[in-house]
């Protein structure tokens, strides 16, 4: 018997002790580098314990419950490690472990290194809170853990609080999170009223007990509440503001796992608390997924700030995950549990995969940022020579996120496509058209993502350095490389070994739809992944990878026979006869995305400004200044009016906010009376 419970509790304990140790180091003003190193190793230990607890729970199918009374009504400190929780906890601990190793080297420099104790305190506290979010089994406890994640991650985001951009990003994150929690809170209360309990187990299937109208309201509140955290468009604006300004190891966890708490909440609500949902609900999720995916990648293409670009890609991938969830809900509504299970596997697998490669990419960006000292891609270039390992790991992440075979992104996108394909035959009337259109737009999204990562990798790492910083960049220390190598290896392993990983989803789909699909998704002695059956379609990343290696014999043989003796010289790149190629001749990130900026001009509304200075003739300019920007549509058209409206209301509210304690006491008294009159009916 696997000591799941002991491992789980020990992991939490290690996080807690590390957090306290960090705090005490900070209070004692011990800012030595060893503090950070040891506390990162502590995080690694905690994550490893949690990892084995989750693996144990998934492998044995054992579910454990554990709860402490609190003395406060409705609140139990209850945790439950069921398959869904264990899966998310597995993702968290895997990413947490790699980021912890990376942080050992990362915290030796940068702003976080000035107060290592405090940083590590919040870091461990966030890991603790995230573990609790994924495993809490009581609504109130869940919300407490949820808020703890918000608070700790806020403090981590604003580590560099001396920069105004950081403070603004952090504040936006805080505000949006609060709004989301507010929506969730009401949604949970509606469900809890129907179930008559705050325990998650009692909430199972409680969505149906509500009247259709209230059920719909609860669904929408929870969807948008969790949607803020997940970063679905149009609730995404905090994400590209807050993720880039955080230290890179924090950005990695934010994009890798913190936004996945929103996905976890949705999975819990859609497939546990609601036994079935109306067609419109599934359609809403599917459409939200398509919109987020497509707009996310389009905005990412316009960025030349490496970390903002990655942040927009998180929105895109959340969209792809929601396409899986949305189709799963639609299949359930139309009575196809098998297909629902296939689509849910696609969504959950992509959740894990995105966590892994996005974490890897953010860590890579962190190395670049530390090595080259800038987030602006236009000032990078040629880093592959100075940072070869970082470049290799970033390339693996870029291939994986672009959904290219044989890595893990391909596998989960393949399942998503298969789910969408099956939707055409399995649903009636016009609903069926939504699936292939979603599939076509997923294809567009994936191809645009590939274009974006050609840009991100090509401009950052290839050709000539565009600035002195890039020229003098240095490779990261070994611990940072190990952290990235772990994630890169996971990308490869989850791609090539997907058939061995798929059974993990069996108990999850069993709980959600009463179907264990994973047996049908794997065929051919564990070589093939299938779309439900061999006839529907099959793929084997492992065989494809082996075949690619085998086929390399063909060009190598041709070269050996014919071209072996031919001379190979190194010469300058063709520069049209100009005196030498310089970095100024290179294509820039802005230029790279120019065709797409023009094609999707209706969305971006690009604006550009060219100023030329000349002496004699306008044909011989002395200097040209070029500025180009796109319109942030959501910020200006939705959030700006909202902000103005809220400020106007706040200005009126000021009249009752007198600042006098007597007045506030009177308000409290009146509220109490009203509650006693209306609230207590019995």
């Amino acid at each position, binding site marked *: 018997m696997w000591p799941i419970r002991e491992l789980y509790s020990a992991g939490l304990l290690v996080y807690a002790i590390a957090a306290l140790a960090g705090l005490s180091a900070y209070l004692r003003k011990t800012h030595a580098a060893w503090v950070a190193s040891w506390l990162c190793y502590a995080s690694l230990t905690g994550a490893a314990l949690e990892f084995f607890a989750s693996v144990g729970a998934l492998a044995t199918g054992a579910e454990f419950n554990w709860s402490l009374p609190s003395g406060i009504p409705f609140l139990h400190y209850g945790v439950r490690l069921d398959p869904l929780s264990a899966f998310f906890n597995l993702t968290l601990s895997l990413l947490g472990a790699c980021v912890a190793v990376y942080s050992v080297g990362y915290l030796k420099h940068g702003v976080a290194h000035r107060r290592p104790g405090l940083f590590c305190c919040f870091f461990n506290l966030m890991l603790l809170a995230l573990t609790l979010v994924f495993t809490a089994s009581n609504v109130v406890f869940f919300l407490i853990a949820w808020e703890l994640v918000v608070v700790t991650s806020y403090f981590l985001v604003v580590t560099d609080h001396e920069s105004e951009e950081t403070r603004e990003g952090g504040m936006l994150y805080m505000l949006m999170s609060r709004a989301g929690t507010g929506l969730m809170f009401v949604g949970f209360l509606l469900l809890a009223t129907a179930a008559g309990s705050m325990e998650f187990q009692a909430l199972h299937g409680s969505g149906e007990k509500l009247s259709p109208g209230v059920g719909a309201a609860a669904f929408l509140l929870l969807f948008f509440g969790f949607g803020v955290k997940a970063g679905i468009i149009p609730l995404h604006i905090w994400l590209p503001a807050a993720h880039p300004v955080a230290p890179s190891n924090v950005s990695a966890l934010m994009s890798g796992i913190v936004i996945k708490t929103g996905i976890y909440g949705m999975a819990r609500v859609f497939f546990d608390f609601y036994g079935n949902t109306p067609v419109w609900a599934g359609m809403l999720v599917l459409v939200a997924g398509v919109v987020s995916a497509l707009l996310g990648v389009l905005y990412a293409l316009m960025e030349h700030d490496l970390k903002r670009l990655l942040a927009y890609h998180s929105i895109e991938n959340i969209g792809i995950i929601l396409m899986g969830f949305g189709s799963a809900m639609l299949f359930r509504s139309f009575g196809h549990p098998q297909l629902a299970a296939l689509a849910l596997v696609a969504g959950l697998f992509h959740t894990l995969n995105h966590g892994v490669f996005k974490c890897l990419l953010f860590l890579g960006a962190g190395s670049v940022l530390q090595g080259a000292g800038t987030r602006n891609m236009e000032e990078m270039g040629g880093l*592959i020579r100075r940072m070869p390992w970082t470049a290799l790991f970033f390339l693996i992440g870029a*291939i994986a996120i672009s959904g*290219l*075979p044989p890595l893990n992104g*391909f596998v989960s996108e393949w399942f998503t496509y*298969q789910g969408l*394909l099956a939707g*055409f*035959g399995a649903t009636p009337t016009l609903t069926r*058209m939504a699936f*292939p*259109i979603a*599939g*076509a737009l997923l*294809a*567009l999204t*994936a*191809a645009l993502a*590939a*274009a974006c990562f*050609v*840009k991100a*990798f*090509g401009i950052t790492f*290839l*050709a*000539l350095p565009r600035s002195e910083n890039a020229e003098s960049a240095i490779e990261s220390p070994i611990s940072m490389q190990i952290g990235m190598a772990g994630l890169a290896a996971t990308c490869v392993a989850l791609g090539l070994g997907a058939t061995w990983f798929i059974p993990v989803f069996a108990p999850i789909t069993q709980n959600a739809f009463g179907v264990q699909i994973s047996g049908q998704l794997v065929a051919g002695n564990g*070589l*093939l992944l299938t*779309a439900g059956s061999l*006839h*529907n*379609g*099959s*793929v*084997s990343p492992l*065989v494809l990878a082996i*075949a*690619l290696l085998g*086929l*390399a014999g063909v*060009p190598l043989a*041709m*070269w050996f026979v*014919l*071209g072996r003796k031919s001379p*190979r*010289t*190194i*010469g300058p*790149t*063709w*520069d049209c006869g100009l005196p030498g*190629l310089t970095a100024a*001749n290179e*294509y820039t990130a802005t*230029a790279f*995305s120019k*065709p797409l900026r023009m*094609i999707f001009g209706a969305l971006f509304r690009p604006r550009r400004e060219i100023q030329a200075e000349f002496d004699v003739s306008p044909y011989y300019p002395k200097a040209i200044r070029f500025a180009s920007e796109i319109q942030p549509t959501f910020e200006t058209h939705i959030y700006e009016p909202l902000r103005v409206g809220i400020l106007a209301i706040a200005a009126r509210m000021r009249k009752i906010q007198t600042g006098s304690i007597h007045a506030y006491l009177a308000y409290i008294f009146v509220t109490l009376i009203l509650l006693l009159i209306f609230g207590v009916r019995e």
Partner: protein
Amino acid sequence: MIEYTLSILVHLALVLLLSPLVTGFNRTFKARVQTRRGPGLFQPYRDLYKLLRKGMVIPETASWIFTATPFILFVTTLLASLLIPSVTAQAPLSLFGGVLAVVYLLALGRFFLALGGLDTGSSFGGLGSSREMTISAIAEPALMLAVFTVAIGAGSTNLSIVAQAGLSQSWRFLAPSQMLAFAALFIVLIAETGRIPVDNPATHLELTMIHEAMILEYSGPYLALIEWAAAIKQLVLMTILVNVFFPFGLSPDWSPVPVLISLGLFLFKLLLLSIIVALVEVTNAKMRLFRVPELLAIGFVLGALALVSTFLFQG
């Protein structure tokens, strides 16, 4: 097992030997229509042979990406060709990857090719990469809708099963959905293989190039691999068009007589399709880059109509 290995080898040999011929035919036929003599049917073979033996110049700015790209491009394209039935209804490796794998293997090759273009540090490489990635991205929805129509019709993404489903209903290609999907895929073929009106493979002006601008710095054996891969990619897409929509004559196994008949029919179908492609090329002028999305939007609409008609006419 030996038979299986043999079938893979035969398939590989066919793809490797046939693909330059298709390119050669396209050039010769276009030349004849324009009343030129043209380079001759077998010129691409001579070109490849010569390039493979020539020396090469590697740009001093380039990294290992530049060196790896020709190999990755060649290998991914070759693997994609093994997933598609050509003369037998059973493609050698179709079990290990269906039409989605074909699309994504080609995308993997393109990903590296675009990186190879950026790696040289010249403006032309970046220009080519940027345009290639843009056009392939906006071609993707049309491609995927056409692929979906075919896959939904046959109930599978495995191209061997799709071809066999087509074989069992020989007049299937007359269904409106199939014809519309064919038209959509044809537009994608033009865009993906860099044909006029989207790109001009014979242009000598860098600013109008797309594909050629990307590979401007490649020479010698590397250029040979890239050119050959481009020819194989063209053959891959054309094989999908002819064998998925018009699968008649595909041999069920490797017995000699049906295979020979099947090979003859396959060549004939390719010939017809090449003639159509060449006629499109000689009767059109190259479009401005920003007109290309409109062409591909037509492809998208055709693909969507194909799906709607699957649903309306049940076929």
